[in-house]
């Protein structure tokens, strides 16, 4: 029997069911997607099909060739260009992550004008150029171009040459800035090989590599190219396995891969190299004869050198023996060894060792006799003093971030504050750009034209072409475009010096001029098209482009002893700043993939840390994660401790690259910047910044943090993984 009440109940049940069904259908429905048609498609546009363009990676000065996969007019993936002589198909993490710069949400999308209160407002190119160009024209015609300073980096490219021409026509001063520059190495090559340029190190054909501080597998000069060569060095075609000795106070990625790691006292590398050279000279043999030196005055004996460097004398004698018997030895010097107060002397001794070993000319070879000139500390000081006296009207910062990368102790921030007008050319609101009056938003290297002469060297002349792989995403221009437009608007000598329409026309004309200079007879247009396809142009070095090494350099003097800013009693530790493969000096910090990437040795991601030898840490009662204050004469930062057995007890190591005050959401306020601790100390000979010559003190703050790292402990916890003697 069905009551009226029951019928209502059943109907209600059914109704709720139907409603639920409808709702489920609606919820489970896939969201509608749109299919955006192109307006006018690019000529090579093919939806669903990829096109690969060969171009140049501009993330570091190594200048690797890359192939970019482009789909629907957007860059999607980066691979190494297999036909490029520097990287031979390889890429590094930083190159892979460079797409993060292109699509970064914090990229600048149009020129920005400072509102005078720390913020920026959007502007237009017309307004921006109009605010700057008339000043330039007036300064140029009044002969007051010297009141302009151009701050730039160290690429060897047509774009940099445009800046040079611009600066020259204006009469401006140019500062070439960078923390880790090859300035000391250039001076050493000049002194020992009589060569003006960076030599080519042929790691691949060596059978013994002794590296004084050069982390060539991690972040030194051209890690991708050297990693390829390292593969050949370890398992070359003739079946030999090269032997690698790494001499450095903190175990780098190269140190981890080495057969021997010798933690020499910082600053004693030159004395070590000279002692080894003297020992080899003392032995009879053909190698000793060819260098033309009787002996090396001032060189220590191996035992004395071992005592100075705090190394076991036995290990040093073994190393000398290895060097004496090696068929193709190669000695490298760089990193912190090339950045002390006695850096040029150190690297000169390293080069002398190469000469004694007869490596100079075999595994160390002439390269292109050309290299950018880096500004000495004294030139930076001149700029700062000029700004203090009100003699700086205009500062143009092109693609570098000196307020982050260089020590605060140089006083650059104050100088930029005092300059009348600061114009930054950058794709990001970097620390420096954020202190400017104007930020002219620049392209990423995926969107514009330029080129680069490979400096790490291939023993040949190789020039990589940078071409746009996609349209500009935003209202940006390249540095070259901005320089050309400023020159055109200013008129006069500036417009005459740079009469080009845009970066493409300029780059093509530079290449055409180079073809004429090199006496190439082929049709330029066809040749340039071929370069666009291959991404790189390689030729043998013509007469006069690579000076031969000269054999008549006198024997080097004994290097001066290690010197540091800060008294040892007050600041007991030597600060060893190092570059990680991803962050480098700081260019990687704005890229989220790089922030996420754990450091290869410590597995720490997203932050900064202070590496302490466990014995030192025990002495100071510090555990992993204890926050310490690291202080020097120049400043102080707070960061968590990481106990790392691969660092000398009297040295503390800190990664560079973090601690940005601006630079987008991924970089800003993350970690600390050890560059802010560095004293304004320079190399005694070149005047280059000695970034590894600062002493620091530690103070426990009592605070503790958990570090973001992917591994637990570095010990094997009694499992004897490293053999029966393993007590870790």
């Amino acid at each position: 029997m069905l009551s009226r009440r029951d019928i209502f109940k059943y109907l209600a049940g059914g109704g709720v069911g139907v409603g639920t069904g409808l709702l489920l259908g609606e919820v489970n429905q896939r969201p509608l997607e749109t299919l955006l048609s192109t307006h006018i498609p690019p000529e090579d546009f093919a939806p669903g099909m990829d096109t690969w363009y060969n171009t140049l990676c501009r993330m570091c000065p190594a200048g690797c060739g890359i192939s970019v996969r482009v789909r629907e007019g957007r860059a999607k993936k980066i691979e190494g260009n297999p036909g490029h002589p520097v990287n031979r198909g390889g890429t590094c993490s930083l190159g892979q992550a460079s797409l993060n710069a292109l699509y970064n949400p914090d990229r600048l999308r149009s020129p920005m004008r400072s509102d005078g209160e720390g913020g920026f407002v959007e502007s237009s190119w017309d307004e921006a150029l109009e605010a700057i160009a008339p000043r330039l024209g007036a300064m140029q015609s009044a002969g007051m171009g010297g009141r302009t300073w151009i701050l730039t980096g160290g690429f060897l490219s047509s774009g940099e040459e445009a800046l040079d021409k611009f600066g020259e026509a204006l009469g401006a001063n140019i500062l070439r800035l960078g923390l880790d520059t090859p300035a000391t190495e250039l001076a050493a090559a000049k002194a020992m090989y009589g060569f003006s340029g960076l030599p080519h190190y042929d790691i691949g054909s060596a059978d013994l590599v002794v590296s004084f501080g050069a982390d060539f597998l991690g972040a030194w000069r051209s890690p991708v190219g050297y990693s390829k060569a390292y593969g050949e060095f370890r398992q070359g075609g003739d079946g030999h396995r090269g032997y690698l000795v790494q001499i450095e106070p903190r175990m780098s990625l190269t140190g981890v891969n080495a057969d021997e790691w010798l933690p020499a006292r910082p600053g004693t590398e030159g004395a070590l190299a000279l002692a080894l050279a003297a020992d080899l000279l003392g032995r009879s043999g053909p190698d000793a004869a060819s260098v033309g030196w009787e002996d090396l005055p001032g060189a220590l004996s191996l035992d004395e050198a071992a005592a100075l460097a705090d190394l076991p004398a036995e290990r040093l004698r073994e190393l000398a023996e290895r060097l004496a018997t090696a068929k193709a030895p190669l000695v490298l010097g760089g990193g912190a060894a090339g950045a002390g107060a006695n850096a040029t002397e150190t690297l000169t001794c390293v080069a002398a060792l190469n000469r004694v070993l007869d490596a100079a000319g075999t595994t160390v070879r002439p390269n292109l006799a050309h290299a950018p000139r880096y500004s000495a500390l004294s030139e930076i000081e001149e700029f700062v003093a000029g700004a203090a006296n009100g003699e700086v009207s205009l500062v143009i910062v092109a693609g570098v971030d000196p307020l982050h990368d260089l020590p605060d102790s140089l006083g650059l921030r104050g100088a930029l504050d005092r300059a009348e007008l600061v114009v930054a050319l950058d794709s990001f609101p970097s620390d420096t750009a954020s202190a400017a009056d104007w930020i002219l938003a620049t392209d990423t290297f995926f969107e514009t034209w330029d080129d680069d002469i490979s400096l790490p060297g291939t023993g040949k002349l190789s020039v990589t072409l940078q071409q746009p792989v996609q349209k500009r995403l935003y209202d940006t221009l390249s540095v070259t475009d901005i320089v050309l437009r400023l020159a055109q608007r200013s008129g006069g000598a500036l417009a005459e010096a740079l009469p080009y329409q845009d970066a493409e026309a300029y780059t093509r004309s530079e290449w055409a001029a180079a073809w004429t200079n090199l006496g190439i007879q082929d049709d330029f247009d066809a040749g340039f098209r071929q370069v666009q396809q291959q991404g790189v142009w390689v030729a043998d070095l013509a007469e006069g482009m690579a000076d031969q090494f000269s054999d008549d350099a006198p024997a080097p003097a004994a290097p001066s002893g290690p010197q540091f800013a800060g008294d040892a009693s007050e600041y007991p530790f030597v600060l060893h700043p190092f570059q990680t493969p991803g962050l480098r000096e700081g260019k990687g910090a704005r890229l989220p993939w790089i922030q996420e990437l754990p450091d290869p040795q410590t597995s720490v991601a997203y932050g900064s840390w202070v590496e302490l030898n466990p014995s030192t840490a025990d002495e100071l009662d510090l555990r992993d994660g204890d926050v310490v204050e690291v202080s020097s004469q120049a400043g102080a930062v707070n960061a968590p401790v990481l106990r790392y057995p691969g660092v000398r007890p009297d040295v503390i190591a800190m990664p560079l690259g973090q601690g940005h005050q601006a630079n987008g959401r991924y970089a800003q306020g993350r970690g600390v910047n050890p560059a802010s601790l560095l004293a304004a100390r320079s190399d005694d000979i070149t005047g280059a910044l000695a970034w590894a010559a600062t002493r620091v003190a530690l103070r426990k703050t009592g605070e503790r943090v958990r570090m973001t790292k992917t591994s637990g402990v570095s010990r094997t916890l009694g499992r004897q993984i490293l053999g029966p003697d393993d007590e870790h």
Partner: protein
Amino acid sequence: MSIGVFEAARSVIKGLIIAVLAIIGAYIGHWAHGAILNDYTPVQPIEFSHEVHAGENEIPCEYCHSWAGRSATAGVPSVETCVGCHKGLTEVRDKPDVVKLFDYWERGEGIPWVKVHDTPDFVHFRHKPHIRGGVECQTCHGPVEEMARVTRRVDLNENLRMPWCIDCHTEEDVANGRDCLTCHY
């Protein structure tokens, strides 16, 4: 006072009937959603008629969807392609949707068409081998030339689902046609 077993069971049975009715209702509701309230015929930003273009005027599919035989995706024509013809077609220039087209053209924008056919992200469907293998566009897309507004071909949700793909791959004896990795990679 006492309650008989039958009395007690009755209320349980009533509850069960309500539950069964609710479940049946849910099935009906879900079916009705698919049949009536579906998005198989979405409204497009421009009321473009395939009936007029492909049907009456007999423009071949690959004139506009020119990548079907060459790429994974057939592609939608660029605004330039549309305007290329319509510049000369002054007699329809004032139709509201043609006016919309020229608005997009003048603003320099693409047209955000709504996808009618879309495979999930874990399926890699490629047009090229199907077109080259002689499959008619209509086999999957239905008689588009008869549609004023394009609709997804729906036969009780059977179409464009994996069993349907496999049936055809089996019948036509497609090389590796039943291999998982042919479509799921």
